[in-house]
């Protein structure tokens, strides 16, 4: 299972803080986004936004990042700390 975390505005839009998704082996970030969009249609448009970042195991993911069983993925809307 892959743990998915939602923060701030996306937590409200998704209606939840966390979800556990089955990941078929090791998959690309793009493929994982497709699964997310299907499972959470309410936030599909946000997942595609450039301003929404994705972290894998608490590091910013790039398009080369692979996601596998046991990973922690988070959807990060634009930051507004400081």
């Amino acid at each position: 299972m892959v743990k998915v975390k939602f923060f701030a505005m996306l937590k409200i839009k998704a209606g939840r803080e966390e979800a556990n998704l089955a990941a078929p082996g090791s998959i690309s970030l793009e493929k994982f986004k497709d699964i997310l969009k299907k499972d959470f249609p309410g936030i599909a448009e946000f997942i595609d936004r450039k301003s929404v970042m994705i972290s894998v195991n608490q590091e910013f993911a790039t398009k080369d990042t692979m996601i596998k069983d046991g990973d922690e993925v988070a959807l990060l809307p634009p930051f507004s700390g400081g």
Partner: protein
Amino acid sequence: MVRIQKQDFSVTEEIERVKRASKSIGGVVAFLGTARDISKGEEIVKLDFEHYPGMAEKKLQEIRERALTNFNIIEMGIVHRIGKIDSGDNIVLIVTAAQHRNDAFMACEWAIAELKRIAPIWKKETTRKGEVWVEEHP
């Protein structure tokens, strides 16, 4: 030297903590971010800060380490508050200490800009019109 916490902090104590690093410190620069009462013309009733526990602390630590590597400073401390924050209250403090003031100024300015860029922390503003998650650093 890097913390995220609900409770308020004392600027004096945070500066003392940083100063303890060395007696060669001649210049300390502190940036203190405070909650303004107005945002885009709307009166702010309160702010609420949320963070990604674990990752936010890690990113602040990363900012401190990169600052110590890239600037001629002796120490840096960062404290960011989360939870409910009233108008006028402290939000964030960055303290840099160096032998010479220019290095302390440069590192402090860089660190607060970098914090806004990479630290997974979010601000919710409550005005009379309702609540909104701020997206000022897209």
